[in-house]
């Protein structure tokens, strides 16, 4: 029986965090969970304390990269075999977690990425965002000859090997595509799994349109550099 953990990075999710945890308890009971409160300015922490949720309360805001890495360090420290990232805003659906875990074990994959773009069901994101994601899929394929259909997906399940890597090294901003390339360069096995995601329930997303341009440029550069890092 494997020890499974859900990593829930949360920044200002006082309105969504209870629904998220309830979803997990109901549909993925074989998973433990840990909320990483990234120094939220709202009442996220208080809501978690009221419900007696497992929380790691960061003393300063680290961003999604730092928060998720904290989760991976927690997973490594507590001996988890499998860790899955799960958004605190209600966009992810816990009913897929068991299937993803089974797929990971069956295919002997190091990482399973929940992808919106295999079956193209559910919330598909705005056209501009989708074009950006497609661009990254092509860029990653060009550099690694591997196809990742949803490289920005925050719903990723990792085994112990990947937990160890991410606990030690995880990109700071916009970490998803870069970290995927990092794993591919280490010859890890990455599988896509079709999932359905929902539209954000309440609150605001943390990526604005201005930041998107910076995102595209910075991540492209980071991916290119990652391609040239050497791993034994």
């Amino acid at each position, binding site marked *: 029986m494997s020890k499974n953990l859900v990593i829930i990075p949360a920044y200002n999710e006082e309105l969504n965090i209870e629904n998220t945890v309830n979803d997990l308890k109901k549909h993925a009971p074989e998973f433990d969970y840990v909320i990483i409160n990234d120094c939220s300015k709202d009442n996220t922490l208080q809501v978690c304390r009221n419900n007696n949720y497992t929380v790691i309360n960061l*003393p*300063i805001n680290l961003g999604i990269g730092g928060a998720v890495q904290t989760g991976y360090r927690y997973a490594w420290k507590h001996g988890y075999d499998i860790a899955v990232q799960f958004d605190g805003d209600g966009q992810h659906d816990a009913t897929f977690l068991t299937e993803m875990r089974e797929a990971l074990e069956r295919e002997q994959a190091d990482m399973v990425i929940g992808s919106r773009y295999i079956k193209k069901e559910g919330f598909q994101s705005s056209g501009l965002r989708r074009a950006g994601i497609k661009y990254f899929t092509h860029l990653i394929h060009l550099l690694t000859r591997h196809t990742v259909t949803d490289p920005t997906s925050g719903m990723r399940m990792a085994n112990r090997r990947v937990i160890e890597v991410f606990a030690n090294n995880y990109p*700071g*901003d916009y970490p998803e595509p870069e970290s995927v390339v990092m794993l591919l360069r280490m010859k890890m096995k990455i599988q896509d799994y079709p999932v359905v995601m929902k539209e954000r329930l309440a609150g605001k997303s943390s990526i604005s349109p201005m930041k998107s341009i910076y995102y595209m440029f*910075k991540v492209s*550069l980071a991916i290119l*550099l990652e391609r040239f*890092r050497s791993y034994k």
Partner: protein
Amino acid sequence: MLKIQIIAAVILVLGLLCILRMIKKRKMELKYALPWLIATVIAIVVDAFPQILFWITDLMGIETPSNALFLIALCLMIALIFLLTVVVSRQSERIKHLAQTVALNDEQIRVLTQQIEQMKSDKLSDE
């Protein structure tokens, strides 16, 4: 091509490769290396097409291209140092906050440990 253009190109390209190598080796954060990368690339382009510099010189009403070059380089350096000052200030604030958090946590751990020791010895003396 002037001699200076070739020398500048070599130095700039070496500089660029050096920066990229440091990012690759995780000695520099991409986020903070970006201004340097962009500045180096722009410098290489102007080195290859000096007409750009001549055009800017006329546009700004400056007497010679070398004056314009120094002015632009100085402004860039000032802007970069200013940016770094802002970054350093922010980091300093965050470190202060971290230090305080660690100190407060240490004290709480110390107090709790004492209480546990106390409870253990109370239990032993009860028996």
